[in-house]
C-alpha cells in the first residue's frame, strides 16, 4: 500500500522543473497592505444569529461560519493551501475585542510611520455604519474598562504599566502540533463527539467539535477550489497535475492523519490558519518543527521523495508564514514594529534523554533560510553544551547573513528556569519559543507571555521626585524605598493582568486551540478557564540598564563623592540637564562607568533589583492558579516607554529611548566590546527571567569572516552558553548602521572595527577612514 502511494505520487513530485519560490515571494509583496473586514463581517453576522447562547458556543459558531464562508483562493505556484485572505498580507480587524481604536486612527492608518495599512473608503463606511454600532458596549474592551480597579488604573495612568492583548486575541501559544499530526482531524471529531455524548452539558466539547467539523469542511472547500482551478485552460499541464494532487490531499486530510512530509506540512499550516481565524491573535507560534516533523521527513526521504520537492514544499511553508500580518493600533505598532507575527520556530535543543536533538531536518531548515531570507518564520536555535559543532557552525553562518536570524536560546538556563516553576523535566526540556523571545512548553501552556509591560525606570523617576526634599536620606534607604514602590506596582500589574485574563475567559474562549493544548480535553475546559497543564502570566520588566546606571551615578555623585545634594540632582533632572546643568549631563555620561562594561559594582545593582522584582512577582497567582513570571525584554517598546520617562541620572534626556532589548546595555554606553557585555548581562540571574529576555549584540561582518571567523564566533557562543545567559541575537553591522554611527557617534562608543592588533573603535576614526570602512563594508555584505 505504502509503495503504491509513493509510485502514484512520483509524477506529481517531479513535475516541477524549476523552483517557483521566488515567484511566490514576489506575489506576496507586490501590492500595498490593506485592511480586510471580511472576518469581522462574517463573525458579526454569525453573532447576530446566536444571541442568547453561551459565549463559547457563539464564538465557535462564528469561527465555523467564517471557515464555511470566507473567500478562498490558491495562490500561483503554491503547493500548500490555506490563506487567511484572498489578498496577501491583509490586516484583520476584530471588533468583538475592541471596536474603538480603529475609529481614532481610521484616517491616518494609511500613512502612519510604522506598519501602515490602506483602508478603503467603502470599508470605512461599512465599519462605521454596521460594525461599530453592533460591537459598541458589548466588546471585550468594554468589559475590561469597566473592571479595572482604581489602583491598577492608577498604575496605568502613572505610565508604569501597560496592559497588552486588550484589543485582540491572546496568542503566544503553541498548539500540540505533534498530536494533530499523529491523529488527524477525524480523530478529534470522533473524540470530541464521544466526550460530548458522555457530558452533554459541557459547552467546551460542543464548541471544539463545531470548529473541527468546520475545519474538515474547509479542507473540502479547498479541494473544490483546486479541482476548479485544474479545469482552467490558462494553466500548464504540470500545474494541473499538482492541483489534482492537492485536491486529493485536501480530501484525505479532511479526515485522515498525514502520511508524508508534504501532508504533515499541509495539516500543520491549516491548523495554524484555523487558529488565526478563531482568535486573530499575535504569535500562534510553530514550536519545534524539526522535532515533530522529523518522523514524516524521514519517512518521505526513505520512500524516495526527491530532495528538491521537500525543499520546495518547506520553502512554500516559509513563504506562507509571511502571508499573515497583524494589524495593530498605532501605539502597539510602535512597541511591536515591523510585523513580528510570531511564526517562531525553535530548532535543536535537548531531547527527553538530555541529548542533543539536532537532526537532518534542523540543518535543512537553516539551510533553506539562506535562500528564502524573509522575516518569518522567525528561526531560533536552542544551544547547549552538547550542540554538535557542525550545527553550531551552520547557525553561525546563518547569522553571518546579517538578518538577525536565527536568534539563540540557551538550554542551560531556560530548562532550570522552568524546573524552578514546577514544570516536569521532560516538559522543561521540550520548551520552545513563542512570540519573539518568550519561552513556553509547547502544546501544554496558556502562558499569557505578553500580558503586560512594567517600566522600572518610570518607577525610579516617581520615587526620586517623591523623595526630592529628603537630603537626609542614605543610598540604602533610597534603594529600599524604590523596592517598596516596585512591590506596590507589582501588585497592581498582577491585578490588571488578571482582569485581562478574565476578559479573555468571558469574551474570547478559544475552544479549537484549547483542544490542541494538553489537559484541556481531559479537564473539559477551555484554556481561558484554566484547562491547560501550565498556566503562567508573564510581565516584562523594562529599563534595567538605565536604572542600574542611574542608581550608580546617584550612589557615587551624591552619596560617596558628595558633589551635589540629592535635591539638586532632582532639580537637574527636572530641568532636563538644561541651563546650568548642561555640564552635569556630560559629567554623568562620561565620568561614571555603566552597565555593559563588566563592572560588578554596577552590574550587581541591576542584578539585585531584577531578582527582587522576579521573586516578588512570583508570589502572585493568576486567576487560573498559575504563577506570574518575570521577563526582561522590550521588542521595540524601549522607544515608546522611553517617551514616558523624564531625564534620568544616567544622563539620558527626557523622553529619549531606554536601553534596547531588555538586558542590553544603554546604546553607546558599552565601551569594551561584546565579551564585557556578556559578562555584565550574566550577572543578572537569567534563570529568573522565566518568561523571556532579550539581548542585542552588534558585530562587524568582518569579524565573522572565513572559517576561522566562524569558529571564533562559535567559540564565543559556547562561552555565552557557559555564562548562562538566556538569549542573544546578533545585529551584524550593515553599511546603514555605520552611516548612522558616523552621524551619531555618541550611540556607538563600543563598536569595534576590524583591526589587527591595534586599538581602534569606529568612533575614534576620522571621517575619511570611516568612509573607507563603510565602502569596504559594501562588499563584505
Amino acid at each position, binding site marked *: 500500500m505504502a509503495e503504491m502511494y509513493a509510485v502514484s505520487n512520483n509524477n506529481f513530485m517531479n513535475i516541477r522543473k524549476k523552483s517557483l519560490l521566488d515567484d511566490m515571494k514576489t506575489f506576496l509583496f507586490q501590492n500595498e497592505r490593506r485592511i480586510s473586514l471580511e472576518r469581522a463581517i462574517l463573525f458579526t453576522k454569525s453573532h447576530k444569529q446566536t444571541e442568547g447562547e453561551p459565549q463559547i458556543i457563539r464564538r465557535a459558531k462564528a469561527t465555523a461560519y467564517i471557515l464555511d464562508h470566507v473567500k478562498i483562493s490558491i495562490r500561483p505556484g503554491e503547493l500548500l493551501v490555506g490563506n487567511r485572505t484572498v489578498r496577501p498580507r491583509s490586516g484583520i480587524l476584530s471588533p468583538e475585542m475592541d471596536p474603538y481604536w480603529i475609529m481614532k486612527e481610521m484616517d491616518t492608518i494609511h500613512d502612519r510611520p510604522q506598519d501602515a495599512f490602506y483602508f478603503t473608503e467603502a470599508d470605512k463606511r461599512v465599519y462605521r455604519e454596521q460594525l461599530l454600532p453592533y460591537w459598541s458596549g458589548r466588546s471585550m474592551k468594554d468589559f475590561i474598562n469597566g473592571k479595572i480597579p482604581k489602583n491598577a488604573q492608577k498604575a496605568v495612568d502613572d505610565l508604569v504599566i501597560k496592559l497588552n492583548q486588550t484589543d485582540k486575541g491572546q496568542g503566544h501559544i503553541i498548539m500540540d502540533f505533534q498530536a494533530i499530526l499523529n491523529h488527524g482531524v477525524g480523530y478529534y471529531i470522533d473524540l470530541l463527539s464521544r466526550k460530548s455524548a458522555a457530558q452533554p452539558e459541557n459547552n467546551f466539547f460542543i464548541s471544539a467539535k463545531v470548529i473541527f467539523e468546520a475545519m474538515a469542511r474547509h479542507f473540502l472547500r479547498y479541494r473544490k477550489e483546486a479541482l476548479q482551478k485544474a479545469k482552467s485552460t490558462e494553466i500548464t499541464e504540470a500545474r494541473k497535475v499538482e492541483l489534482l494532487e492537492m485536491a486529493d490531499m485536501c480530501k484525505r486530510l479532511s479526515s485522515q492523519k498525514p502520511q508524508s512530509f508534504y501532508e504533515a506540512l499541509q495539516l500543520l499550516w491549516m491548523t495554524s490558519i484555523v487558529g488565526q481565524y478563531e482568535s486573530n491573535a499575535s504569535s500562534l507560534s510553530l514550536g519545534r518543527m524539526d522535532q515533530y516533523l522529523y518522523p514524516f521527513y524521514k519517512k518521505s526521504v526513505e520512500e524516495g521523495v526527491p530532495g528538491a520537492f521537500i525543499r520546495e514544499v518547506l520553502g512554500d511553508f516559509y513563504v506562507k508564514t509571511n502571508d499573515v500580518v497583524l494589524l495593530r493600533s498605532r501605539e502597539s505598532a510602535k512597541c511591536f514594529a515591523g510585523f513580528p507575527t510570531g511564526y517562531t520556530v525553535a530548532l535543536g535543543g535537548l531531547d527527553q534523554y538530555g541529548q542533543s536533538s539536532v537532526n537532518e531536518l534542523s540543518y535543512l531548515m537553516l539551510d533553506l533560510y539562506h535562500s528564502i531570507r524573509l522575516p518569518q518564520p522567525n528561526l531560533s536555535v536552542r544551544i547547549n553544551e552538547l550542540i554538535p559543532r557542525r550545527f553550531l557552525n551552520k547557525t553561525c553562518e546563518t547569522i553571518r547573513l546579517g538578518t538577525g536570524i536565527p536568534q539563540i536560546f540557551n538550554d542551560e538556563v531556560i530548562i532550570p528556569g522552568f524546573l524552578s516553576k514546577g514544570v516536569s523535566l521532560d516538559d522543561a526540556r521540550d520548551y520552545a519559543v513563542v512570540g519573539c523571545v518568550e519561552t513556553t512548553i509547547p502544546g501544554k501552556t496558556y502562558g499569557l507571555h505578553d500580558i503586560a509591560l512594567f517600566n522600572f525606570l518610570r518607577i525610579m523617576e516617581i520615587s526620586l521626585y517623591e523623595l526630592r526634599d529628603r537630603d537626609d536620606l542614605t543610598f540604602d534607604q533610597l534603594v529600599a524605598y524604590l523596592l517598596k514602590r516596585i512591590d506596590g506596582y507589582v501588585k497592581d500589574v498582577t491585578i490588571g493582568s488578571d482582569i485581562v485574563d478574565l476578559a479573555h475567559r468571558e469574551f474570547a474562549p478559544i475552544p479549537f486551540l484549547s483542544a490542541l493544548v494538553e489537559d484541556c480535553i481531559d479537564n473539559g475546559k477551555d484554556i481561558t478557564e484554566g484547562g491547560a497543564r501550565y498556566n503562567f502570566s508573564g510581565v516584562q520588566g523594562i529599563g534595567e540598564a538605565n536604572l542600574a546606571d542611574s542608581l550608580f551615578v546617584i550612589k557615587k555623585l551624591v552619596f560617596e563623592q558628595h558633589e551635589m545634594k540629592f535635591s539638586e540632582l532632582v532639580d537637574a533632572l527636572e530641568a532636563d540637564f538644561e541651563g546650568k546643568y548642561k555640564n552635569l549631563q556630560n559629567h554623568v555620561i562620561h565620568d561614571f562607568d555603566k552597565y555593559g562594561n563588566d563592572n560588578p559594582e554596577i552590574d550587581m545593582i541591576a542584578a539585585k533589583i531584577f531578582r527582587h522584582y522576579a521573586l516578588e512577582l512570583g508570589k502572585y497567582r493568576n486567576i487560573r492558579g498559575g504563577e506570574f513570571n518575570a521577563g526582561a525584554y522590550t521588542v521595540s517598546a524601549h522607544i515608546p516607554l522611553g517617551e514616558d520617562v523624564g531625564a534620568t541620572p544616567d544622563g539620558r534626556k527626557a523622553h529619549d529611548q531606554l536601553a534596547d532589548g531588555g538586558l542590553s546595555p544603554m546604546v553607546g554606553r558599552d565601551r569594551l566590546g561584546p565579551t564585557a557585555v556578556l559578562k555584565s548581562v550574566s550577572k543578572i540571574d537569567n534563570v529568573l527571567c522565566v518568561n523571556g529576555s532579550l539581548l542585542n549584540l552588534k558585530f562587524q561582518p568582518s569579524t565573522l569572516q572565513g572559517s576561522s571567523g566562524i569558529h571564533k564566533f562559535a567559540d*564565543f557562543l559556547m*562561552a555565552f552558553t557557559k555564562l548562562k545567559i538566556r538569549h542573544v541575537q546578533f545585529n551584524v553591522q550593515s553599511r546603514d548602521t555605520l552611516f548612522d554611527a558616523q552621524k551619531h557617534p555618541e550611540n556607538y562608543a563600543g563598536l569595534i572595527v576590524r583591526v*589587527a592588533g591595534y586599538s581602534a573603535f569606529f568612533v575614534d576614526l576620522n571621517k*575619511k577612514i570611516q568612509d573607507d570602512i563603510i565602502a569596504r563594508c559594501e562588499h563584505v555584505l
Partner: protein
Amino acid sequence: MTRGLVFNIQRYSIHDGTGIRTIVFLKGCPLKCPWCSNPESQGPVRPSVWMKDGAEEPLGKWMSVDEVLHEVEKDEIFYRTSNGGVTLSGGEVLMQADFAAELLKEVKALGISTAIETTGALPLKQIRKVLPYTDQVLFDLKIMDPDKARQIIGEKISTIKQNFEEALNSPAHVIPRIPLIPGYTTPPENLRQIRDYVTGLGIKEIHILPFHQYGSGKYEYLKRSYRLKDTPLLKQEEVNTVKAFFESAQIKTVVSGLE
C-alpha cells in the same frame, strides 16, 4: 613588585593569535616606523599625554602584574572555549621584558594561552626572558635591506634576525607577520628577501597585514604629522598577488589573522 606601563587593554581581539584574546599594550618602542598605528607608544617607557576632543588625556598607566591579571582574567571563560588567551603587544613588548615575563608566567600557569607580538628589535637577553612563557610569537618582519631598515625605522637587521632565530629555537610557535605598507615593505625585492629568509628557516605559515589608516586620527591627537596620510589602501588584487607570491613557496599565507 615589577610594574608595567600599559597604555591599553583590549578585549575580544580575534585577529592576533589563536581564539578570542585580550591584548595588553605595553608602552615604549625603540623604532620609528612611519606607518605606526600606535604612535602614542613610540619612544621611551614613560607616561605621556595627547589632546583628544580639546582635553588632555593621559597615556600609559603603571600597573602591577596582579592588576593586569585581574583585568585579563575577566574574559577567562572566552579563552577556555576558544583556546584563546592573552597577547602582549605594544609598543615593543621587549622594552618591558621583565614585567612581560612575569605576567606571561602567571597567565600560562593558569593554563591560558600566551602570545607576544614583537619587532624583535632589542638585545637577545630581553627575548630570552619571555620566550619560556610564550606559546605563540607573532614576529614582525618589515624592511630587510639593512641600510633602509636603519634609516627608515631605526632597526638593525642583524638584531632582528638573531631574535627571530632565537624564537624559532624555543618551544614557542613563531608566525612572521608582514605589514604590507605601500612603498616601504611592498617592493618586490623586499618581499623576495623576506620570503627567502623565512623559507631558509623552514617557516610554513605567515600572516600578511594590509596597510590601513586606522592610526591616522592618533597623529592628530599627538599633533604630529603623519607621513602616510595620503597613502591609498591596497587593492584586493595587490593583496592577492602578495599572498600568491608567498604561497608559491609553499608558505600558508593568512590575511589579517583570520583564515
